[in-house]
């Protein structure tokens, strides 16, 4: 097709002849409207926690190219991430370290918003992979030998590094902070770091009731029983009477036990 014919056909698809004067005003109006609404845009994004996506896109681009980035940033982004997550199950069943880690990373890259990906991913790394490393008949050595404990700590650190990636999207997520605290406590046996994380979890968004009980418990384990008692007493006052999760009776029992212990010590 000749250039002039192509150009005529392209121009024929739009009829801007009567609208040429409107176009610059429309563009200027759009820019002004965008500038006026920019603060509202920022306010909404802040409230929704729509964090930085440039970094996650760069990671995806480097692996798969820009086509995938555009393709996934539509309404089926969550679905795409879900399908990758489900595909990870096959690698998990085969105890495929590389495949499982790659799919967990891809799912969180496609859609870093679901906390479920981060929590379950870190649990696979911290809990399942040490067992894969030594084999099922030998899982006892993970807790009984220095080599076993080193393996547990190594995967614990990897899980923490993985959870670090959730920071831009879940900086104040109590469940994720709590997960980190438990890894420090159970895997790395670093009670100081664990207590800091669990305390942050109690101050995060929608903290679960058990985070408070865990903080009281870890303070007790660290020998800071007076502090634990004060913490649990102030927490007890906030608990509703009719909530199963609040476990008010359990907290009351723990406070009673701590008081008795401290009183007997004083005596």
């Amino acid at each position, binding site marked *: 097709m000749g250039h002039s014919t192509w150009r005529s056909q392209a121009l024929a698809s739009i009829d801007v002849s009567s609208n040429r004067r409107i176009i610059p005003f429309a563009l200027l109006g759009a*820019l002004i409207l965008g500038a006026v609404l920019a603060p509202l845009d920022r306010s909404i994004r802040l409230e929704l926690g729509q964090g930085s996506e440039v970094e996650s896109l760069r990671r995806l681009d480097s692996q798969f190219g820009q086509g995938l980035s555009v393709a996934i940033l539509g309404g089926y982004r969550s679905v795409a991430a879900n399908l990758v997550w489900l595909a990870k199950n096959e690698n998990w069943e085969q105890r495929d370290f590389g495949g499982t880690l790659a799919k967990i990373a891809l799912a969180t890259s496609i859609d870093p918003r679901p906390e*479920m990906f981060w929590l379950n991913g870190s649990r696979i790394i911290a809990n399942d992979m040490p067992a894969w490393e030594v084999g099922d008949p030998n899982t006892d050595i993970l807790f009984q030998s220095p080599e076993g404990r080193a393996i547990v700590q190594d995967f614990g650190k990897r899980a923490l590094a993985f959870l670090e990636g959730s920071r831009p999207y879940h900086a104040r997520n109590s469940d994720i902070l709590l997960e980190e605290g438990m890894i420090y406590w159970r895997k790395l046996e670093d009670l100081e770091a664990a207590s800091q994380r669990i305390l942050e979890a109690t101050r995060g968004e929608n903290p679960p009731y058990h985070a408070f009980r865990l903080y009281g418990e870890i303070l007790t384990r660290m020998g800071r029983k007076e502090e634990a008692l004060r913490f649990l007493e102030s927490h007890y006052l906030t608990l509703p009477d009719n909530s199963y*999760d609040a476990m008010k009776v359990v907290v009351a029992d723990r406070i009673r036990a701590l008081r008795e212990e401290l009183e007997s010590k004083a005596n």
Partner: protein
Amino acid sequence: MSEASQSLAWSFSRAFAIASNTFREAVRMKLFLAMTTLAICSLASSFFFREFNFGSSELKFITDFGFGGMSVFGSALAVIVSAQLFYGEIEHRTAMTLLAKPIHRSEFVLGKFMGAWSTVLCFLAMLTLCLIAALWWRETSLMAEYPDSFQSGRIVQYGSLLGFAFAQALRIGILCSVVILFSTYASSSLFAMVMGVLIWIVGQLQHIATEAWGAVDSWILKGIYAFVSYALPNLHLFDVGEGAALGENLSLVLYAKLAAYALLYGTFYLAIASASFNRREL
């Protein structure tokens, strides 16, 4: 009597008459039926994954499929229906008979927008009902199967599902108004549809341009990113899904902000569309 006093008062009733006729035409389109069927099938397919997971993960998957259907199929329907319903009148010359009546062209534009938007709202409502029914049914069966995991009661925030549907309705309103704007000077519905899809994609990615334009060195790229971030609406704002159904309740203030954002953009695009259509020669 002076000419100024012999002007035709603007009438919402005429715009509404055009809207209701447009809606009646739209819901008869095979495309509407096809999209609705596809979206519901997509939702139904999410049940296929139940064997792999249970609990909040499975409910999340069902929710995501439902949300994805609303977003993708709803947006596609908005673009195609708006272009076809508007440009179709011009193509078949029914617009000539209509506009030969004592109506303002802006009433025609608004009527077409309302007709197209209400069509997609109808689709969203059907899909929302299906999603709520699907989740309610599955959650009930999971609660019976795994009572320990549901000690605190249901975990799906059904009110927030409605909130997500509301946010999608707003986003689609912006899309419809953009496509109608392009239709006012397009000589084919294909041009309006292509531009609508482009705005949809760029609007979804606009927030990245906003983040990126400060980070690049090239002045040309900076200019492009800045232009995109200011000139186009941020459609990504309306993706409230993750926070909605299985997490915290979003505030009414947030929904009011989204509504204000959509109203301002929609009004702007329809105003430009009216000005453009006033100058169009039929």
